[in-house]
């Protein structure tokens, strides 16, 4: 396929850095925080992870789209990333599960995307400058008048308010309560494998939940009821759950006052609580700790996290731009895991309650499965309580 088949695109950062490439997704404009992810596999899972709402993602591995896309690797019902930035879109997707090439997939979902730029240069800028906003402009507007396009994109990048103070959980959550019954994917069987009988009833707050979390809970014998982000605690507790799960999600945890209030209320009961990513941050806030935006968020599938109790190291999947400030932890909240990349806090556990959180992504998808045992800990807390 010759490069002329695609229209032009530009990515402009708020600092004025400009990248010119070709438009491989939809035509149009998109603004957001620009982040990079160093995972070498799993672009489809990344695109459909609700935590990427309002973020333009650049993937550092140069060939993206090698395996195409398929209906099994979706982590939610839609693409949430505000745009995709890559070095090279391959000429052909090759995988026995491929259903649709990446460019067609992006176009069908109206996602703006750019290829053929020096993504390593972009990554180095983001690494050095920290959280940076940008604008992706693709299609005829770029070809028509490049100078005007640059100016428009720069203005849009500068106008983007940034994610601090932005409550996105509300925007990405489900509209109504539902039951989740599907277990994990298996080679040769897909999702057709028998999900086990249910032992525990879990209510999962959807702040932008990834499907694989729900699948892994289901694998462990849980009946999973997913509720919208703003569901009051009373409603949740009235279901008499064996445990409450707080999902991952996008944006700043601090403005999610409704969730913090609900979690506080739930923590007053003896119900085991488990939070992942945003859910972990919300648990911390509800317990009296503080969160802040990191200079450089974690986005990748190779992050070492050490468990404080046993010293074991787990390679984990990570995706967060905000973190719990360890210095702010109250007495009843202990640190259980740390990142070996930057020493940041990765896990917390209430000393007075059956409640804990993990900052990374134990559900992987994409990424290594090493830290999946934290799900088992949740199960153990529930079984201890029932005993």
């Amino acid at each position, binding site marked *: 396929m010759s*490069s002329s088949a695609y229209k032009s695109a530009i990515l402009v950062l708020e600092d004025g850095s400009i*990248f010119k490439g070709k438009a491989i997704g939809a035509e149009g404009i998109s603004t957001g925080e620009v982040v*990079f992810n*160093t*995972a*070498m*596999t*799993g672009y*489809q*899972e990344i695109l459909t992870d609700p935590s990427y709402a309002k973020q333009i993602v650049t993937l*550092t*591995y*140069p*060939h993206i789209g*090698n*395996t195409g896309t*398929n209906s*099994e*690797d979706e982590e939610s019902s839609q693409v949430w990333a505000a745009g995709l930035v890559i*070095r*090279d879109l*391959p*000429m*052909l*997707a*090759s*995988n*026995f*599960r491929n259903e649709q090439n990446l460019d067609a997939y992006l176009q069908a979902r109206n996602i703006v995307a750019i290829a053929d*730029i*020096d*993504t*390593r*240069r972009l*990554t*180095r800028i983001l*690494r050095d400058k920290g959280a940076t906003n940008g604008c992706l402009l693709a299609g005829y507007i770029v070809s028509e008048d490049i100078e005007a396009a640059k100016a428009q994109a720069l203005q849009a990048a500068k106008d983007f308010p940034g994610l601090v103070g932005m409550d996105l959980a509300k925007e990405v959550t489900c509209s109504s309560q539902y039951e989740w019954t599907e277990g994990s*994917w298996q*080679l*040769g069987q897909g999702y057709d494998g028998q999900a086990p009988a249910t032992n525990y009833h879990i209510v999962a707050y959807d702040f932008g939940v990834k499907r694989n979390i729900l699948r892994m809970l289901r694998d462990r014998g849980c009946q999973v009821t997913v509720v919208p982000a703003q569901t009051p605690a009373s409603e949740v507790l009235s279901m008499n759950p064996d445990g409450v799960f707080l999902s991952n999600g996008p944006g700043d945890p601090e403005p999610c006052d409704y969730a913090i209030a609900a979690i506080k209320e739930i923590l007053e009961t003896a119900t085991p609580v488990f939070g992942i990513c945003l859910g972990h941050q919300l648990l911390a806030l509800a317990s009296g700790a503080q969160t802040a935006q990191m200079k450089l968020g974690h986005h*990748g*599938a*190779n*992050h*070492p996290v*050490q468990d404080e109790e046993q*010293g*074991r*190291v787990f*390679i984990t999947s990570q995706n967060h731009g905000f973190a719990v400030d360890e210095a702010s932890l109250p007495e009843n909240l202990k640190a259980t895991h740390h990142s*070996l*990349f930057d020493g940041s806090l990765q896990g917390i556990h209430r000393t007075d309650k059956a409640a804990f959180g993990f900052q990374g992504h134990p559900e*992987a*998808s*994409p*990424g*290594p*499965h*090493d830290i999946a045992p934290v799900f088992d800990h949740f199960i153990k807390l529930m079984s201890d309580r029932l005993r």
Partner: protein
Amino acid sequence: MPKRTDINSILIIGAGPIVIGQACEFDYSGAQACQALREEGYRIILVNSNPATIMTDPDMADATYIEAIEWQVLEKIIAKEKPDAILPTMGGQTALNCALDLDKHGVLEKYGVELIGAKKHAIDKAEDRELFDDAMVAIGLETPKHRMARSMEDALDAQKELGFPCIIRPSFTMGGSGGGIAYNKEEFEEICKRGLDLSPTNELLIDESLIGWKEYELEVVRDKNDNCIIVCSIENFDPMGVHTGDSITVAPSQTLTDKEYQIMRNAAIAILREIGVETGGSNVQFGVNPEDGRIVVIEMNPRVSRSSALASKATGFPIARVAAKLAVGFTLDELSNEITGGATPASFEPSIDYVVTKIPRFTFEKFPQAPDRLTTQMKSVGEVMAIGRTFQESLQKALRGMEIGISGLDPVHDIESSDADNILLRELKEAGCDRIRYVADAFRKGMSVEELFEHTAIDRWYLIQIEDIILEEKALANEGISALDKDFLFRLKRKGFSDKRLADILHVDEHLIRNKRYELDIRPVYKRVDTCAAEFRSTTAYMYSTYEEECEAEVSDREKIIVLGGGPNRIGQGIEFDYCCVHAALAMREMGYETIMVNCNPETVSTDYNISDRLYFEPITLEDVLEIVHIEKPKGVIVQFGGQTPLKLVTSLEELGVPIIGTSADAIDRAEDRERFQKMIQKLGLLQPPNATVRSLEQAITEADNIGYPLVVRPSYVLGGRAMEIVYNEAELKRYIKEAVQVSNESPVLLDYFLNSAIEMDVDVVSDGKQVVVGSIMQHIEQAGVHSGDSACSLPPYSLPMDIQNIIREQCVKMAIELGVVGLMNAQLAYQDGEVYIIEVNPRASRTVPFVSKCIGVSLAKIAAKCMVGISLKELGFTEEIVPTFYSVKEAIFPFNKFPGVDPILGPEMKSTGEVMGTGSTFAEAYYKSQSFSAMNIKQGGKVFISVRDADKAELPEVAKSFHDLGFQLIATKGSADVIAKAGLPVEKVNKVMEGRPHIVDMLKNDQIDLIVNTTEGRQAIADSATIRSTALRHSVYCTTTIASAKAVCDAFIFGGDISVNSLQDLTASVQ
């Protein structure tokens, strides 16, 4: 918890000589292990028989033993050094097998030595196919359907169950030695027979065929706390059926989704746990059915490997170094990731933001009788790795780094040939070493991706990218050079096209493209290999070129010296040159220069980013070197250490103003150009064998008559004696000229009178331009006519009179002064009938430099490098030749067992892949050790078969008497038997093969012969006796093909075998 304090000394076992399947990647791993453990304060004892390695440099270990890697020898070393532990995972299969032997013979128990890095049960479980299979079943993983066989009957049974084709693999052999794919019963029986012979346990594994499946490798590291990381995933371009060492491979894996990749990752970790690899690196191989993703486990190696060296270079994560530290008790989180300057720990998984392609290098041309198809038995002798931002870029960079005269996907297929279509199909379906180029040619012919997939089973993801390269080539060819505007040329450069390839497509000279590129301001940038895809700042200057926006070279303003490496290993240019490059780099660092290494061979120590200040992992071509020089602006570029590869560039580089330091390009030409060289020899009043340079057949015949037969004939400018032959008459000369002129592209052919019973010498000297010091004189054991790289040699000479040695010294000094050598010079001389002849002179580092350096305890390469930046020998304190008081013998090691059917005779064309060294207080002891006789189990009093050429018959009685006195029974062919009988010795006559049965080959097949002395000359006689030597090879009968080496063998047997083991440190201390 940090390192163990209950052990103080560790014995590291090396991999021995370079052979196919075990190359200098184990020098890289061994050298890293030595450094890693020494810096922790352990006393390191090292055993490796290979003197060409960096790891055997005396300052790499506390005690270095250049001794055979055999348990009997190791026992002596263990008794002497009393190590607390043995690390057997750094020296390939050789070291693992030796460790198992030490255990089996109770040596470990007797001396209380612990195996670290891999325990016996883990090695057994990984290597024994049945145990491995049970282990896989236990953790729910699938292996290919297979059966074990311990006899031909078993094997035939198994075959019935598995069908054809099926794959046969002998247990416990390296590089898949002896294995193969059988499509029919005849092939099956042949491979099984060979496999049963070769397997030390006489076991075969017969596998269902997974031909056409995709093949993957994961490099896993595990520590004692059960922390596991995957350092790198590798996907094979060539599907299953071709040994992974012979496959083009790509990192990271390209065509797995995250879900499939994680299944593989989990499986790899589960396998390490189940096998019981407690600490260290392992390699796990998988096959994947492209139709449904079904994954099967092929094998695992509980040690560092060729792939782990590749993975280390591909990611910047030093697996061997880390594995060594883990073996002494560290955990991954306690070690830092050095490439980021310790900003991150070693307990993470590298993320890469580029594509790595490795292409193997073959030398089938050296073994014309051997089948040249790629199978499950490894046959390649070296490899090239290239890094690019895309697959196309890395592929084309790797291709031009191969040094086989191509600069990209150059056409290979002769479409004019009458059988063109069939040839093309065969090359696609049954892979040979050029398959990728045939794939390109198929696209040139208009074949589609689908058709090619059908023929090759190469993943379409790769095929379409090759098709795209061909489409670009066609577009360029159609539009012509005027179409090369900035956009088009930049696009081509981004796809990895070299200037040379573009020039070839346009039929113009390379410099036109280069100038056009400069005009359009299209230059490569350099990106860093940093293990983390730029997530963290890297303090390490490990770089590759690409065509992008941002350059990260961060060039300093220090004074710099660039060392050009040797590229891929091949027969004739191997690890010895890497040794020299590394020493040059180290010497320049000592002198305070910023040192820059350029090389593209992932196996080597030179491409370890710790060796130089800056490493450019780039092909050694004019374009790539010029760009690095352009950006770095070095004070000097060293070309004389990397062998022929960088030397070939010297004239062009000098013309373009690159500051070459050391011996001038003109001096190099003066030594290499026969006519200029002859003038110099005459000027100095020295002797050459009568010779001539001829450019046509007629001229050759006339000149040959003037000189007289026999003649050594060869094309000019070759390394390793490529296409060199001895001809005895005009008919042979005619035949040769027709072939040679073809192979050497119209360059002239050289005729030299062949000194057929001369003693040959190798001399290495070093010069600062004013003073010349002889490094050493080595006397070859085999007489002239055997390539110097294939000949055993003794340092000091063992039978050459001192006055002749002195004449040789004088002559070499004269030549070095006349040529104006600054740095190293190697000369080959011959001594016959009282005269010394100059055979050839090379003003550059030679193959013998590391051997000499080990013997005399001084690094000649370092001294030479320092001379090249203007330090005098006097200032360096090296003004006199060092003549050791002990003997060292270097012996060549051959790959004949990988090429069944090949005649293992030695001749003027080099065939050896590696070398070993033996030392002793006498020549006999040193020779005995170099031949590994202790492991060979030759029965004294057995039968020796003798058949020698007429020229050797004068010396035959002496040799025969020695064997007789040693208690051997003599068996000889008629001519030789008559000579022996005349000397009054008992001898039994045996038929030559053409004389009727029973004949000598029958005796060999019946295992009635223990030793062979078979010397021969002339094309016909050699052909007639070839079955003797190839049968001997198959039956592992020691065979010597020169009378001189037969004498040395007798000396060694008289010595008897009570060997002493001495560390290099002790030996060289006695010298200085």
